[in-house]
């Protein structure tokens, strides 16, 4: 798959992530209960102490992360690539940590949060492939 196609996939994933995190940010500030499907744990997770970081809703941090990754995907060159990859890895690792907290500390599963974790996992996979095939001697990604 070409770098252009991989960037396209990443952009679609970011759009999905913005939708998920944006919804959770909206229900947080609107004081609503998130629609939760079969897991029924969204409210428990969203009102837990792990739903905020330094007073900022984690969902909002997710929106910001997705948007920054999306912007860096639109830029060419090594620096934007590595920036988006670093952000993706940070978000992926943090979503693994939050999923651990859901399972073993909060004892509830938020399907929206799991969906976002899956999106970050896919972004990390696509990002790894892009970074490994990037032509560091030249100015762009080598076609795969």
């Amino acid at each position, binding site marked *: 798959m070409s770098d252009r196609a991989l960037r396209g996939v990443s952009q679609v994933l970011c759009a999905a992530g913005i939708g998920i995190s944006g919804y959770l940010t909206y229900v947080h500030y609107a004081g609503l209960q998130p629609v939760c499907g079969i897991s029924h*744990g969204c409210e428990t997770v969203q009102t837990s102490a792990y739903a905020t970081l330094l007073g900022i809703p984690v969902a909002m941090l997710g929106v910001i992360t997705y948007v920054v990754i999306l912007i860096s995907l639109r830029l060419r060159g090594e620096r934007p690539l590595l920036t988006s990859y*670093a952000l993706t890895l940070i978000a992926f690792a943090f979503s693994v940590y*939050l999923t651990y907290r859901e399972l073993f500390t909060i004892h509830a599963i938020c399907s929206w949060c799991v969906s976002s974790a899956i999106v970050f996992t896919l972004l990390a996979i696509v990002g790894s492939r892009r970074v490994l095939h990037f032509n560091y001697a030249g100015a762009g990604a080598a076609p795969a």
Partner: protein
Amino acid sequence: MTSRQGRKAAAREARLAQEAEALSAAAARRRQRALGGVLAAVIVVVAATVAISSAGGRANAVSGGRLNGAAFSASLFAGIPQHGTILGKANAPVRLIEFADLQCPYCDEYSVQALPALVRDYVRTGKVSMQFENLSFIGPGSVAAGRVAAAAAQQHRLWNFIDLMYLNQGEENSGYVTPSYLRRLLDAVPGLNVPAALRASAAPSAAAALTQANTVATQDGVDATPSFLIGKAKGPLRPFQPSSLTSAPFAAAFNALLRDSR
């Protein structure tokens, strides 16, 4: 001549091959440096973020930290009539009585998982009224919280208080139900006269309310929490054992009773 040209071409090819190899090696080193830098930055940021999040998780209301769900709870009950231990309109066609201990983890599960949707869909719409009978058998913390809940009920703010209690519940009988913890919950209840509530919680009437709830539970054969009685407003109530502490089984029971009421 041909031989000399051949040697020159071979030398040029060898030089080009060496240059390509050097470029390739430089690119590999550059890639390693770049990825090493990215991974180091990622490790540092993730470690810091996880440390901050873990500290925040420990610093909840129980340990004197942030109170969970105050805004959510306030909006959940805003505008819904409360009278003593009852939430909802007096003419609601269906009634639900809940027997619960404020330290009980399963009561917490019901309150956090099921209650918000039930309040939104059935109580706010005037279809169901809910009554809270506060049992206090788990330990001293249950009694202390129960007395404050009774005081909140006197000001018709019981449901706000118990919801905050469940949203911030700690380990049962771990000593977290301190006067300062209860004070913080009361401070987050909209429209509550906190000094009056604190005075009322120390009065005999608060203890009498707990005794009364225990008496009602004994009369109704309740021996576990949470327990529920459900029925039409103008009819007998029957024990209800939900298949799970989510909103779905309660909603199904409410819908069945509401259909019969028409």
